[in-house]
């Protein structure tokens, strides 16, 4: 019986360790070819691509604006890519939930070669966060570094 108890304790401990792995299921793995996939999925539509990270305070502030926007305009297409690694999956999920963004298309960097992933998004981007791309219906895009303002978002919604 002692052995069973021990086994159960180990299993319980492993459940605890596995929580982040389970949470990863909420986000799609972003690899070097993932942007093409995203662009294909939203082809012909205007969408907002947001790169963010847990340790980026302005990103959290921007999420406040995005959460509000999503509530008022549920049809707005927002894709968020976290540049964190898999160890932050639970925090990412919580962060999105707390801003009412749990239903959005969420991706998570899934390659330790960050340069490769960043380059696949934009060779001109130096990694500053948040980094936003507003895609037009014709797939042209503009890149904006730093927290989006309400004015920029309003402008985007008008043109949608």
């Amino acid at each position, binding site marked *: *019986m002692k052995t*069973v*108890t021990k086994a*159960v*304790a180990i*299993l*319980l401990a*492993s*459940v605890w*360790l*596995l929580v*982040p*792995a*389970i949470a*990863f*299921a909420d986000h799609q*793995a972003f690899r070097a070819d993932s942007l093409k996939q995203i662009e294909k999925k939203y082809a012909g539509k205007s969408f907002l691509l947001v790169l963010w*990270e*847990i*340790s*980026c*305070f*302005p*990103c*959290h*502030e921007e999420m406040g604006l995005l959460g509000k926007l999503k509530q008022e305009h549920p049809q707005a297409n927002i894709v968020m890519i976290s540049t964190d*690694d*898999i*160890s932050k999956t639970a*925090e990412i999920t919580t*962060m999105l939930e707390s801003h009412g963004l749990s239903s959005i298309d969420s991706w998570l960097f*899934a*390659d*330790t*070669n*960050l*340069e*490769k992933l*960043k*380059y696949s998004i934009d*060779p*001109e*981007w*130096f*990694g*500053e*966060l*948040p*980094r936003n791309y507003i895609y037009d219906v014709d797939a042209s895009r503009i890149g904006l*570094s*730093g*927290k989006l303002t309400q004015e920029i978002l309003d402008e985007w919604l008008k043109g949608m």
Partner: protein
Amino acid sequence: MVYRDNRKLLFMLMRNFVSGILFILAGCIHTVHDTKMHMDGETLACPFIPALSVNCGRTPTTAYDKNGRLWVSYVIGESVYVAYSDDQGKQYSEPVKVNAKPEKVYTNGENRPKVAFGRNGEILVSWTQEVTGGPFFGDIRFSRSTDGGKTFEPVRTVNDDGLVTSHRFETLFVNTAGDIFMAWLDKRDMVAAQTAGREYGGAALYYTWSKDNGVTFAKNIKVADYSCECCRIALSETQYGDVAAFWRHIYNKTTRDHGFAELATDGVVTPAQRATVDNWQIDACPHHGPTMVTASDGTYHLSWFTLGEARKGIFYGRYNPETGVIDNMHAVAAAGAGHSYLARTGNKLYLVWKFFDGEKTTIKLSISVDEGASWQPETIVAETTDASDHPLLISYKDNVSLSWHTSKEGLRIIPLNQAGSVK
């Protein structure tokens, strides 16, 4: 804990099985690049639970002691390790764990455990502990060894406010006299401001010092309010033996340029002043801190990243804090480049940076022998096709080496004296 209900046990086993599969899949994504490493012709393996080797550690950070022995601090799991090498990093000593009690440690290019040396050969180690309670919370941690790195004293917290908030991005520096300086980004004033219902953007730069080889530290002193909150701080010795600090700072709430100050063991000597005026209007985290070394005439060689109105990219300049002027301004690199690092021996100035061309990451080097007035053509000194850390420069006497950790090759120590060919 005994489960008599077999159905419950069965359910748990099922759940673990499913979780286990998910975990293995997730683990594969995470460690796909850590499984095999090639180094000096040998193949090293970092298993899922990595060996204690420096090559499998996170953010290994190096320094030479006064005898030219190479020391390295790095993190595995929730432990900070220290090891040394007497053959330029070919082989390392058995690593010694610094923190007896496991704790979460910030490990990224900008924020990493550091090693330095006291005046009696004490091995000094610092890092930022991840503290629970908030996404940016942390404490500045310090420990030292007085027996040549065999054992380490219990870890101490250096920030003295007792607040559970953000204290991060510590820098550890020992001047020629052997005084220990630590500077970091601190949000204690933001906590106070919020309590009083006031706004507070960014963090503050704080520092402390120890004149007794790390036995005690002075009361924490604030250098400046409103620093940027996610970039490393550069420290360098002033011509008077004090310490100069160069860090990313927020001006007028949204302009992220750089501040400069000179700090001594009895307080701030040169109060914070604006050093770079690029007018980078941005509310963002650049995750891209500056680098600085003191010039032979007491001015400062700086290198930094900006996307300001005035200029965009990686820049070099020589700063005179008395006039507030940067001369010899030089555009080092544009898109694809990052994380420049400076070192100086005699009149030779070394500047390295990282560059990704879409296929591989290279470390480029440029040398100036006239205090930054002109720069020799850049050369590639190292490359990798996989994940890599920021490049660091370490020096001993007149020798400067690149210290670069890459997931494929492990930690490489590359002497730059005969730089030019790819290694």
